[in-house]
């Protein structure tokens, strides 16, 4: 049986997967934010790929409320009373997820939160002060300025899941700018003028399903998943979402290409390309609830991040996954990919929470929620290694019968 597996593994095509990543990162898909035109276009492109691979396809829409959207680049200028600087959106400043929408530029003096009168001032939030605590010092303030680390390329991270909007405009500043303002704030002439153009939109997201085989008899039912949505482009700022999670989608589509028509009869085999992971894993929550309602219990393998591979791929499991973990371990040994228990905070948790055996696999990212997440940072060797692992796990699951029935459903 391993001879058959090795023949399948020999077909894993890194160039094909790299091509999928490049396609998903293309500007026409605009970073694939859930509910956006770019997200819908990416889903249709993926549906075409599944059709080519011979899958029976279905699209499953669901509503998502209050998706944050920065609809214009914020205009941010500040002065220490002598010099004036215009901050670069994405690098020196970004709109915080908790920000209120402030389309017009508001100018006022800069002060430090908790020190003096806040009325009519932009308040710098000192390191160590929580946003919640800051609100207690911010009655009548123009807005808040929070220091936040940037990535190795100097970009702010974009997050779509997090706090609800508060009563004030909130900007994040890179550590250097934040420190410079803190130093200048006691100076009488320090001021800041800024807008925070962010709105919340109710959208329709959709999961894309492809099925090749339906489980029958004692055959195992397999579900491979990856989220195709990203955090989306900002005005004037491309965020291609290549590693997160074009890479995972590429792995799952390639695994489906290799497995869809060769698994043993009786084996169920489907993929779910999930939407709205970046907004709280809502696509997998929607799908997991459906599976639970219908009494369907596939083994779930989710991939989130196959862009880089360091010492080992991280694996997080949930639900009755002991057998699935044993198969994954065997697959890792067969393909030579080291595995380590580590957090994979992604869609796999939704399936596990619904009581399904689920594992999440995350190798690594070349970039994360920023313009630095580009296709050139996705290593084809990492794609190949993770795909081989997924293919081997699925094959072993389909061809290795459980020797003893478990009393605990394992």
């Amino acid at each position, binding site marked *: 049986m*391993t001879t058959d597996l*090795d023949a399948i593994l020999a077909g894993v095509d890194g160039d094909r997967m790299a091509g999928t990543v490049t396609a998903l990162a293309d500007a026409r898909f605009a970073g694939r934010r859930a509910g956006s035109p770019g997200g819908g276009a990416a889903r249709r492109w993926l549906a075409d790929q599944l059709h080519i691979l011979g899958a029976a396809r279905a699209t499953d829409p669901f509503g998502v409320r209050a998706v944050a959207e920065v609809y214009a680049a914020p205009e941010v200028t500040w002065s220490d009373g002598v010099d004036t600087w215009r901050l670069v959106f994405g690098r020196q400043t970004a709109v915080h997820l*908790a920000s209120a929408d402030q389309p017009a530029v508001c100018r006022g003096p800069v002060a430090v939160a908790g020190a003096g009168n806040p009325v009519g001032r932009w308040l710098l*939030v000192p*390191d*160590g002060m*929580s*946003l*919640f605590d800051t609100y207690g010092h911010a009655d009548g303030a123009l807005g808040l300025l*929070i220091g936040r*680390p940037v*990535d190795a390329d100097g970009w702010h991270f974009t*997050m779509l*899941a*997090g*706090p609800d909007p508060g009563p004030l405009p909130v900007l994040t500043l890179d550590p250097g700018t934040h420190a410079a303002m803190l130093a200048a704030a006691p100076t009488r002439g320090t001021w800041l003028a800024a807008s925070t153009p962010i709105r919340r939109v109710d959208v329709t997201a959709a999961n894309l399903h492809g099925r090749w085989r339906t489980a029958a008899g004692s055959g195992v039912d397999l579900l491979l998943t990856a989220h195709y949505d990203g955090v989306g482009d900002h005005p004037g700022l491309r965020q291609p979402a290549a*590693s*997160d*999670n074009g890479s995972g989608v590429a792995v799952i589509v390639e695994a489906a290409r290799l497995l869809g028509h060769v698994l043993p009869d009786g084996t169920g085999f489907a993929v779910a390309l999930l939407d709205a*992971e970046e907004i*709280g*894993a809502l696509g997998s*929550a929607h799908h997991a609830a459906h599976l639970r309602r219908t009494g369907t219990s596939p083994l779930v393998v989710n991939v989130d*991040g196959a862009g*880089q591979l360091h010492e080992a791929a*991280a*694996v*997080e*499991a*949930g*639900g009755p996954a*002991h057998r699935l*973990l044993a198969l994954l*371990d065997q697959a*890792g040994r*067969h*393909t*030579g*990919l*080291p*595995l*380590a*228990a*580590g*957090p*994979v*905070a*992604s869609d*796999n*948790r*939704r399936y*596990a*929470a*619904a009581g399904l055996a*689920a*594992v999440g696999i*995350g190798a*690594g*990212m070349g970039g*994360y929620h920023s313009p630095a997440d580009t296709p050139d940072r996705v290593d084809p060797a990492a794609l190949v290694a993770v795909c081989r692992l997924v293919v081997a796990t699925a094959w072993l699951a389909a061809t290795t019968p459980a020797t003893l029935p478990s009393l605990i459903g394992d």
Partner: protein
Amino acid sequence: MSDTETRGGFAGDPAAALTVTGTSGCCGNPPQTTLALPEPAAVGGPCCGTQADATAESSCCGSAAKTDAVAAGQGCCG
């Protein structure tokens, strides 16, 4: 390729993946016991920000979870 000739697979007990360290912090929950995800993100980047975020913000973290996350050097949501 023999299964015993490579150094792949888990170095220890695969079941450790069921009790991943850090999933009780603010960036994750025990996957078997909750339907709520405080912040989805992926391994390889900051889960939900950085240790500095965890220190500075409490937007979706209870104080105990935030303390745990900071102590563990993990990120924090929001």
